[in-house]
């Protein structure tokens, strides 16, 4: 968006300073992840008694419903200062939605990878404990974990995690 010369961007990452940052920048539009709990703090800005001198209106109130729906489905919500024309909002929102979707995909992948790594670490540790305690090899240790999990109707990772934490208590 910046490269296209569309607008001036400021990114607020410290959510405890959100309303203060908005007051300082006086933006025309605020875009926020729908999953961000700090979105509720923005709601305060829509009240007449808000400490801000500029009136802020909720985007979904004044523009066409189709656009707002698209934004919400994509997980972005926007607060627009009164008076910003809707033909100026559309390209900004389009760009934000596209960008957001890309980031979300990356975030999901990253989380899945991280989780897989952590699970493998726990299973490896559980295998190690079993090998030492029962004098069996790695393959047998894994088979034992898997059989226990199946018998108890649990996931291998859950059995492994329980074993690791119990072993931690005993040592």
């Amino acid at each position, binding site marked *: 968006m910046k490269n296209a010369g569309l607008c001036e961007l400021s990114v607020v990452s410290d*959510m*405890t300073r959100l309303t203060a940052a908005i007051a300082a920048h006086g933006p025309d539009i605020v875009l926020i992840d*729908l*999953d*961000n*709990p*700090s*979105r*509720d*703090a*923005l*709601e*305060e800005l*829509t*009240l*007449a*008694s808000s400490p801000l001198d500029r009136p802020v*209106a*909720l*985007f*979904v*109130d004044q523009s066409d*419903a189709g656009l*707002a*729906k698209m934004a*919400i*489905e994509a997980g972005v*919500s926007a607060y627009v200062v009164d008076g910003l024309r809707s033909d100026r909002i559309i390209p900004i929102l389009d760009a934000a939605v596209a960008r957001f979707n890309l980031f979300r995909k990356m975030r999901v992948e990253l989380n899945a990878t991280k989780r897989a790594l952590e699970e493998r670490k726990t299973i490896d540790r559980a295998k190690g404990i079993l090998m030492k305690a029962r004098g069996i090899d790695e393959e047998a240790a894994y088979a034992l974990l898997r059989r226990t999990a199946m018998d108890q109707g649990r996931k291998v990772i859950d059995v492994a995690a329980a074993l690791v934490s119990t072993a931690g208590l005993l040592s």
Partner: protein
Amino acid sequence: MTLFPLPVGFLPLVDAAPLIVAAEMGFDHVESIALDLRRATSWSGLRDMVSFGQVLAAQMLSPMPVAAALGLGGVSVGLSAISVLSTNGEVIGISNRIADQLRERPNALAFDDAAAAGAALISVAGGPLRVGVPFPFSMHAELLYYWLSSLGLPAPSALEVRTVPPPLMAAAMASGEIDAFCVGEPWGSIAVEKNAGELLLAGCAIWPGAPEKILGVRTDLLGTIPEQLGALVRAVWHAGQWLDNPRNYTVACEILSSRTYLDVPSEIIDRSLTGHLLTSARGGTHMVHDFIGFSQTQPQERHAAWMADRLAGRLGLDRSAAVPAGRTQFAAAFHRHAVQAIPGYEPDLPRPDRLFDGRDLNIDLGE
């Protein structure tokens, strides 16, 4: 039998329990609906999900449909409360600094004396009292404004009510941005666990039986899918009866604590269901009777009218227009009709709404 799929939004809070229990214990299937619960992270998010039809109903703060009717918060669609999900369950917490000052005052930390606690809090404020609430249109905000202004604290000059998302409440308290908060569980107990502050009072000490969360739907759905929404009301009613039975507390805690729902230790949830609160990190405990309730599901128009009147008065709107606009957002007749179909259902006797200062909920419905 085919089940009607019903997507419903909720926030991971103890008072989402009726929805969670209805889905987990199968009260929905009995009514030929299948709840599809969607967890959200903000009240404005839930409201927009309902407005744009991503979910058909959602857990909401009780003043939200009223605020929408008054054109507050930038919503243009009408919202209706078809059931009360929970009564009370709020806690008021104070920073450790204020708690230390209150220890000197008689009865201030007794936990059941709203007048003494409020008067003491006002006397130690030393400047405008800054209090965090989860949302501008919330029973938390209404209780605070009523409680402290009834004790003589002028708002807004001496009382600053700020919106702070509950996950950030402990941090806001620690950094000195707020002196106190009013939130729902488990957030009060989590603040105690983090040693961010102490609990001062339960919401039921200010207004016992205050409608805290409601089940909100887009008003036009009352005409388009009345059967399904009626079934939802009944499923939630059954869940509420189940939840208010002490024999079910342990199971309820386990269900709520799971990763899909609240994802907090069941021991913390147990505190609010039993009313056995841990009020400070140094181990203070208090037993609060009727801390939270789930079986008073009937929306009352006079409650909605009172909220409309309070909101309008505070925000400078026309009160005589606000009251009739707000009161009808509590769909009392719709709820009554739905629960009457339950075999053996008997309506609760009407209870007076007595506030902590001895006054009754005073509202002129223009009848």
